[in-house]
């Protein structure tokens, strides 16, 4: 994710010069803010991406995984 931000940053930087008033580009003025934004963004993206892909995965494999059939055997014992 860090790589992704670094790849993008020069492009965004050019825009930042053009729209200095626009609030999001404050991030790119100070290095600490930039780095913090990168790490926070990477963390948030990681969580969101993992959860999203797990949902997709469960949809692809609906009915095949243990969690889909578990209820049959756990309820029977209780």
């Amino acid at each position, binding site marked *: 994710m860090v790589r992704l931000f670094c*790849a993008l940053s020069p492009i965004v930087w050019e825009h930042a010069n053009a729209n200095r008033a626009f609030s999001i580009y404050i991030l790119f003025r100070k290095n600490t803010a930039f780095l913090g934004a990168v790490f926070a963004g990477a963390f948030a993206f990681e969580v969101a991406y993992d959860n999203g892909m797990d949902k997709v995965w469960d949809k692809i494999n609906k009915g095949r995984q243990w969690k*889909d059939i578990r209820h049959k*055997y756990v309820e029977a014992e209780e």
Partner: protein
Amino acid sequence: MLARTALRSTRTFASAKNGAFQFAKRSASTQSSGAAAESPLRLNIAAAAATAVAAGSIAWYYHLYGSASAMTPAEEGLHATKYPWVHQQWFKTFDHQALRRGFQVYREVCASCHSLSRVPYRALVGTILTVDEAKALAEENEYDTEPNDQGEIEKRPGKLSDYLPDPYKNDEAARFANNGALPPDLSLIVKARHGGCDYIFSLLTGYPDEPPAGASVGAGLNFNPYFPGTGIAMARVLYDGLVDYEDGTPASTSQMAKDVVEFLNWAAEPEMDDRKRMGMKVLVVTSVLFAMSVWVKRYKWAWLKSRKIVYDPPKESATRH
């Protein structure tokens, strides 16, 4: 050119018998006088001799062994049919209901001869059995304790951390009970056999009712075309209705074979589900990153790629010098 080289090497080989010094002398003088010194007669004799030796050795081989029948289909085993296993698709997990059925088949049929020594009960929890089922199953078997104060080793009921028990005490006992043949451990059998799932499924379902005419089957062996050598010590074990599935699936021979093969694939690759899920995430994110890097490259190169080189000829001047 090739024939020439071959002939020359034959001659070199023949002269090497006479002494090493001659060989050394010959290779030292190859460039200067070698080609010029060979007469056509000697070349022809050498070619005839080499041909005679080759033909003679082939004839001798046939005389000794009858025919050159190495790597025949009977020795290799019939190629297993490719089956469209769903669990082998890129983004599909094991069908855990099938794993449960396959484990039942293993327990009721295979386990009497084949061990599954690399699978602990804890691996079954959360994939095939519930915790309580696995604990109950483990407690059916006895395991050695650590030595107590007197150094005696006692027996205790199994725990989740124990491994599935072996049917025989050791390999010798297994061979003795099976007419000299050792039933292989099944933990990694899907990875260990060429053809994997397809091979094992074909083997289990491929026993003919009787061996084909002309096939020689050794004493105590059974004919199976998929087994390399065709003589297999294991007899056909799966027959329709052999096990009674708890989920009501009809227990046909092929159904049981399919379930137990999928179970054995799980035993060999218990990490497969997680591995494929991680693989999907990696593929998606890397393809997005790749697309972005292509876009960035084009963006950066746009000025260079879109420039136009124009030839501007010097103006024709009216005055001539």
